[in-house]
């Protein structure tokens, strides 16, 4: 039956060689042939190659992802569905996930980032939830790399262009620069939606005879996987028109799709199952829905709305055209479903049916062009335990003789260098291009440790943060991942929230290299440990491998996005000092380490040493303490003390407020090297400010939690001064510092 149907004459014969060009190994190909009992058709080969690709099958990571904690009191739906679901009590559930769109964004930054946003939005509303907030986590090469500015401008504009237009606020994120991303940037986008508990939908196809509807944009040759480029070289005739084209996002259609889908899912009984057409479009959605529902499915390609002439079954099945969904209705609901989509000027076509059995059968021009067991493509996809080995360079990297680093006599200059640096300068110029207020839920706007969004109709609020220090992860993948989880949770705690769930985006190099696999395994171990200790189970996520150019991998970047809950939105806290005269305290141990620090990297060009280890019990205690202090109204600000160390965190408290800057007078006890004291980094440290009269109660909260609390000084005046022992080691004008800090990124990215 190979290559029948539309364009059969042009479809090449399937050989082991062609299979290899499609990225299937000999073993994988033979396995498929055995299971099918015959050679696959050309269309089937295309389907196999995408479903068994790393991206869809997680063949290198599945075995390790099993180690992540995915259970918790709030968790309704864990990994496996389009997004995770967390119960917030009050009848409302939060649905969230993070996705990467790294490679497309490197090829075409604007469209790559835009379609990345579109994809994650669909993952959320396909569950029946209305998206209400997004975060973006970005990594670029060094600011002076010729391509960096172009990439930053394009990616940021793409996220803004799509997210703003659809009306989902981007309320936070992170962006960092490092040469390891020169040839491979990272664009990770997180979206959170909410729904009433009973309105949650699944991506399962059930009910024999139920109609399968295709809704949304027409299908073009967008983003058909590289393999088809190889294959298409055989049709020289139209090879030009057959070349896979870059996906262009259509946020307007996405918005219509969003509203129409939520409307049909609101009416009980209309929708049996629904799933977006993301990677591997029609293929992935049909196969996964059939597999999840334990049913068979028949698809009629002649019914698929096409945008271009003469598309082959292969192309139709593999197209990654955006803004499309697959939906299973019932014979009774079909008409009503169509009606709703018409209301929103969208096309809804019945393209198939749910059938008995377990096979996905694809027809075109009256002929069967693909007929395979869904299980073969999903559950029976290859799984690998790839060899892993600690890289040689690790030893080297971990060695750091601090003695060899000159100790500064004064911290002011260093602090000024840090505040104007690419990684520590203000991100305002970026998040101001994102609509972070639409939907009027944003209680704490971007610019603080975590964004806080209220849940209308309740007294609750959600807190969102995304974190990953890739330098830490490079120098010590397990510790680095643990630290990323700890920081995300700490960011939430500083807003007054307790974690309810976590999603991750694991960006790594080529998993076929043992060193990369080692980094991956260690990172998973770190995430697993920290997420269980901090009771922030993983509800879903994404793995992005092969982030390499010319065999040089990016820093391992396991991005962690965490969602926290505040039961009283009134208690939401921000990071900046509020009132002159407030006392400043440090919760936690002041000691920081220069190893792996931003200070060392920026001012001494050294990325070395092991990042300070996180004691998860201490971390928990510190977070509990700050939550309790916030909950009982004792503090006016709380800020996580991370990149740049104690001195930089204090500066942020002074200059990051929306209303301008305020100074502070800080006294520290001498302890070892000055730069370590000021700029050394360590987890489990939080700076709070409180009215003098709360001091005793605050100290009591700390000691009750078994957390050291250290008076640092007082808010007030125009300058930030830090005195160690008898000598002033930092003295700068807060307003000037704020200006320089705000101008840092725009200046660095000026062409």
């Amino acid at each position, binding site marked *: 039956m190979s290559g029948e149907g539309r364009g059969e004459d042009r479809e090449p014969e399937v050989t082991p060689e062609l299979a290899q060009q499609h990225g299937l190994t000999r073993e994988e190909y033979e396995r498929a042939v055995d299971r099918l009992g015959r050679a696959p058709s050309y269309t089937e080969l295309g389907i196999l190659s995408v479903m068994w690709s790393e991206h869809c099958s997680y063949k290198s990571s599945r075995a390790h992802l099993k180690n992540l904690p995915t259970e918790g009191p709030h968790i309704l739906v864990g990994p496996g569905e389009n997004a995770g679901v967390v119960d917030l009590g009050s009848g409302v559930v939060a649905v969230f996930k993070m996705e990467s769109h790294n490679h497309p964004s490197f090829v075409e930054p604007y469209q790559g980032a835009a379609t990345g946003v579109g994809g994650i939005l669909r993952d959320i509303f396909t569950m029946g939830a209305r998206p209400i907030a997004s975060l973006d986590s970005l990594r670029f090469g060094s600011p002076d790399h010729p391509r960096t500015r172009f990439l930053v401008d394009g990616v940021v504009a793409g996220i803004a262009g799509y997210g703003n*237009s659809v009306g989902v606020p981007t309320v936070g994120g992170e962006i960092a620069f490092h040469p390891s991303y020169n040839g491979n940037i990272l664009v990770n986008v997180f979206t959170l939606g909410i729904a009433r508990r009973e309105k949650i939908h699944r991506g399962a196809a059930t009910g024999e005879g139920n109609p399968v509807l295709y809704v949304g944009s027409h299908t073009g040759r967008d983003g058909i996987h590289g393999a088809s480029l190889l294959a298409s070289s055989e049709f020289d005739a139209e090879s030009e028109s057959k070349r896979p084209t870059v996906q262009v996002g259509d946020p*307007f259609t996405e918005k219509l799709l969003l509203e129409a889908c939520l409307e049909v899912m609101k009416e009980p009984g209309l929708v049996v199952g629904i799933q977006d057409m993301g990677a591997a479009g029609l293929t992935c959605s049909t196969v996964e829905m059939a597999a999840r529902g334990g049913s068979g499915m028949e698809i009629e390609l002649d019914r698929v709305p096409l945008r271009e002439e003469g598309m082959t079954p292969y192309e139709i099945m593999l197209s990654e055209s955006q803004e499309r969904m697959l939906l299973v209705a019932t014979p009774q609901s079909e008409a009503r479903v169509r009606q709703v989509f018409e209301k929103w000027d969208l096309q809804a076509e019945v393209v198939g049916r749910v059938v008995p059995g377990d096979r996905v059968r694809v027809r075109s021009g009256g002929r069967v062009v693909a007929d395979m067991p869904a299980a073969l493509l999903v559950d029976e996809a290859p799984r690998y335990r790839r060899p892993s080995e600690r890289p040689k360079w690790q030893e080297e990297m971990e060695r750091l003789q601090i003695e060899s680093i000159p100790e500064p006599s004064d911290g002011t200059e260093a602090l000024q260098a840090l505040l104007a640096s690419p990684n520590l300068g203000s991100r305002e110029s970026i*998040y101001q*291009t994102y*609509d972070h207020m639409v*939907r*009027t839920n944003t*209680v704490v706007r971007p610019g603080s440790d975590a964004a806080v969004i209220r849940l209308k109709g309740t007294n609750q609020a959600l807190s969102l943060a995304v974190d990953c220090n890739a330098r830490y992860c490079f120098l010590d993948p397990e510790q680095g991942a643990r630290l990323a989880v700890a920081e995300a949770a700490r960011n939430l705690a500083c807003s007054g929230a307790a974690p309810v769930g976590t999603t991750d985006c694991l960006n790594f190099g080529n998993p076929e290299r043992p060193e990369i696999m080692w980094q991956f395994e260690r990172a998973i171990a770190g995430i697993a440990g920290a997420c269980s200790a901090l009771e922030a189970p993983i509800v879903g996520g994404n793995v992005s491998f092969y982030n390499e150019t010319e065999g040089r991998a990016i820093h391992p970047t396991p991005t962690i996005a965490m969602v926290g809950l505040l039961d009283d939105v009134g208690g939401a806290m921000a990071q900046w000092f509020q009132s002159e005269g407030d006392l400043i305290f440090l919760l936690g141990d002041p000691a920081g380490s220069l190893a792996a620090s931003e200070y060392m990297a920026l001012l001494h060009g050294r990325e070395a040493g092991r990042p300070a280890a996180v004691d998860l019990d201490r971390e928990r205690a510190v977070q509990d303490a700050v939550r309790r202090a916030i909950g009982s109204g004792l503090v006016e600000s709380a800020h996580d003390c991370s990149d740049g160390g104690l001195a930089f965190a204090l500066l942020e408290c002074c200059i990051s407020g*929306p209303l301008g800057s305020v100074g502070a007078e800080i006294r520290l006890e001498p302890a070892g090297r000055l730069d370590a004291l000021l700029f050394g980094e360590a987890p489990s440290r939080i700076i709070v400010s409180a009215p003098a009269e709360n001091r005793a109660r605050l100290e009591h909260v700390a000691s009750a939690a078994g957390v050291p609390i250290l008076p640092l000084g007082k808010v007030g005046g125009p300058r930030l001064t830090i005195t160690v022992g008898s000598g002033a080691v930092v003295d700068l004008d807060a307003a000037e510092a704020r200006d320089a800090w705000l101008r840092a990124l725009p200046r660095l990215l000026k062409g």
Partner: protein
Amino acid sequence: MRFGIVIFPGSNCDHDVYHVAKHVLGQEAAFLWHKNVSFSGIDCIVLPGGFAHGDYLRGGAIARFSPIMKAIEAFAERGGLVFGICNGFQVLAEAGLLPGALVRNAGLRYVCRDVYVRSERQDTPYTSRIKQGTVLKIPIGHGEGCYFAPEAVLKQLEEKRQVVFRYCDAGGQVTTEANPNGSLRAIAGVCNERGNVLGMMPHPDRCAESLLGNDQGRRIFDSMIHSWQQIRRNRI
């Protein structure tokens, strides 16, 4: 008072306005689908913010042809309150219900942040509770909010006092730095001659609750309610 909030395909702030009208102000509110050719029992029409029809071609260019726009024109003719916020302002300008046009921000980027506007007159239904010269802090969120009109039109606007809000600094001074998008004469909001149709780029609907850190936008809605009550009293 009963607010009618128009939903165009691509409207994003329809629910935000609804929330303010219903849950913050305790008034009645109803959504009006853009395909409706008529509506009734509405005291004030609000065209909300968003990206109607994706803002493809030009902001508001396609939305102005929605079936409901004829009814809205007639409603305005009869003196009904028609309030366009952000994208809604663009629609009203494209529809010719308000003078001028809104073009790409001078800085070329979309900007989302708080700005200050100065209220230029109190004798409109939208500012009846706001003394002339009052400075309000209100957020903007737009990429095409630069107000443009030919010089002659601008003169007329000033003569007829149709400029209702101007971008200014916290102290009420109109300066170039305080103008977020390059709008001519720092125009943030204009009304028609009669004063019953207002369009403004800043979002009062985003700052009508202290929970969001700012409730100054509420004063505009309060003014509308107050004026409407006046009118009704006079009728009786």
